[in-house]
Every structure is written in structure tokens, then in C-alpha cells.
């Protein structure tokens, strides 16, 4: 089902909101850099940078990809590992 709004209409409606969200991200990363201590080796920082990279990808599934990036992996052999039986 397509969105009833054109791309121009979406942009008109959301430009300021997107701008504000990018600004919040920029300020958060600045805050991290201003604070004492080093976190560049923290795996969460790596995840955040990967998330930012995903935003530059083409396609209409960036939200899904970001969700998967921040998700624990699924192992289809989990029931055997848990030794579950009905």
C-alpha cells in the first residue's frame, strides 16, 4: 500500500523534524567527546557508528536494518541447545 503523500509532501512535513533529530545526534556525539574518559573501544559505540552508516544506504528498509543491527542473533538450533521437549 503506497503512502498517500508524495515524497515532496513528506519532505515538507518532516524536514524540520529530521533536522532536529540529526542535530540531537550531533550534540550527543559532541557530548561524548567532551566528557572525560575513552569509550571508542566500547562495542556500543561501534554499533552506533554502524547505525549511522546504515542511514546512508539506499532502499526502504533502513528501519528494519537498524533494528537487526541492535538485536541479539537468532539461532535456529536453540531448542536442541535448551533440550526442550513437549
Amino acid at each position: 500500500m503506497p503512502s498517500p503523500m508524495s515524497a515532496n509532501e513528506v519532505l515538507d512535513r518532516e524536514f524540520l523534524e529530521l533536522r532536529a533529530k540529526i542535530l540531537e545526534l550531533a550534540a550527543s556525539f559532541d557530548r561524548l567527546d567532551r566528557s572525560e574518559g575513552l569509550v571508542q573501544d566500547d562495542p556500543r559505540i561501534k554499533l552506533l557508528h554502524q547505525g549511522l552508516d546504515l542511514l546512508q544506504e539506499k532502499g526502504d528498509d533502513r528501519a528494519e536494518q537498524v533494528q537487526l543491527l541492535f538485536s541479539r542473533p537468532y539461532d535456529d538450533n536453540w531448542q536442541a541447545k535448551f533440550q526442550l521437549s513437549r
Partner: protein
Amino acid sequence: MYYIDPHIHMVSRTTDDYETLAKMGCIAMSEPAFWAGFDRGSVESFRDYFRQLTEFEPQRAAQYGIQHYTWLCINAKEAENVELSREVLAMIPEFLDKPNVIGIGEIGLNKNTVNESTIFMEHMELAIKYEQQILIHTPHLADKYQGTRMILDMLCDDSRIDRSRVLVDHVEEHTVRHVLDEGFWAGMTLYPVSKCTPQRAADIVEMYGTERLCVNSAGDWGPSKPTAVPDFIFEMRRRGHSERLIRKVVYDNPLEFFSQSEGFRFTPPDLSGSQLADA
């Protein structure tokens, strides 16, 4: 627009919320049993809780013209205590014939552990034995994808499960397709911080259509907004979606899903003389 909130925890909300919801068009709601914010110590605590859900809340809701239905279980967080869980499971049948009970829920996983999975399957057995519908909680944040896939595995491995009578809740962009593709109903929970926003829920409707998809507020004692479903309606209207399409998601779909339960004795609003009757 009249709507049904298929998932809201009114025991945690004030009577003012009932009034506000009624003014905003909420005509019915279902309240799954859930975690109280602390682990309960005995089966008697659950018995009192189930009395609240089946006796007190329907009366409180009725004062504002809202029809209140409920689901019973021990939630995934407390399911880590297997012994207590089994005591609760043994007690639940005492309440299944109460007039507003429509199924077993919200069962599910929290941290995707062995004990949670064990109790999830025992809830499935209970639902099958008593021919009850099932409402399922999927985990939060990083645990959601893994937990949702595990839940689907357990459901799909059991041929006795009627998929049209199961709703898997709290779906997001990375889980909704798996749930719908397997033939289950899916619920999107509209939360201010985690889960879905009204905007992202509208995106998901645009990407996946309206079949077997519902939205809910899951309003509870934490950061949540009981009027989130009207926020979704407003977002859909702002985008230019038709009233008929919006109503399918917020009214027709929960009605169709709930109507499969014997305990769902619903009185529709009187729309005679209203433009809505023909919309």
C-alpha cells in the same frame, strides 16, 4: 472514530483515564495479565489479581461505557520461577468461565531463557486444552528479534495451534513480517520511547497492509500513553488515509480477532442515523 484498544493495563491507570479514553472514542479494550513491577510471592497474589481483572475492572470500565475484556496467565518475567508458574497455571481454569475472559495472555518471553520457554509451552498446552485464544508478549529491545523467532518456532511446531486465534504483540519493523507470514495476527504497541511510535506504526501499515494487524497503547505503570491509539488515528488521517482503512486497523481487526472467543460478548455502538454507518 470509535476504536478498540486490544492491549492496555488498566489496573495501573486511574479512573480519569477511563473517562479520557471514553471521550476519545474507546468503546472496548482488552487487558492481558502482566508483571506488576515486582515479582509476586504466591499464587494467592495472582488469584487476587485475576479477581481484579475479572470483577473490578469490568465494572470500573462500564461506568464510562467501555467494555472490558481480559486475558490470564503468569507473565514471562515471573515465569522464571517455574514452581510458582505451575501453581498459577493450575489455578487459571477457575477463572476461564468468567464473563470477560477471552483467552490466555500475555504469555511470551522476556530474556529468552529455558524456564521462560518451558512455561510458555505449558501455557500453550493450557490454551489448547481449554480452546482459548492466545495473546503473546514479545521481548524488548535487543531480545525482541531472537525471542520473537523462538516464540514462532514453538507455535509453528505444534499443529494443534490455530494460528488465526493467536496474536503476537509488540511487533516492530524487524519482526512483523515473520509473524504475518506464518499466519498469526500481529499487534503494534505505541510507546513514547521504546517499541513503535504512531508514525512508524503507520509506516508498517503502509508497507504490510491492514490484514491481521492491530495497534494498541499497552498503557501501564511505566512510560506509556493510554491515548496512543487516537494518536495513530490522527497520524493516519494527516497522511490522507481513508476513514475506512483506519477503522479496519483500530476497530474491525480487533473485533474480528476477539470474536473468535466465546467470552467476547460485544455490544457494538449504535451508529443508526450517523454518517459513520455508511462510511
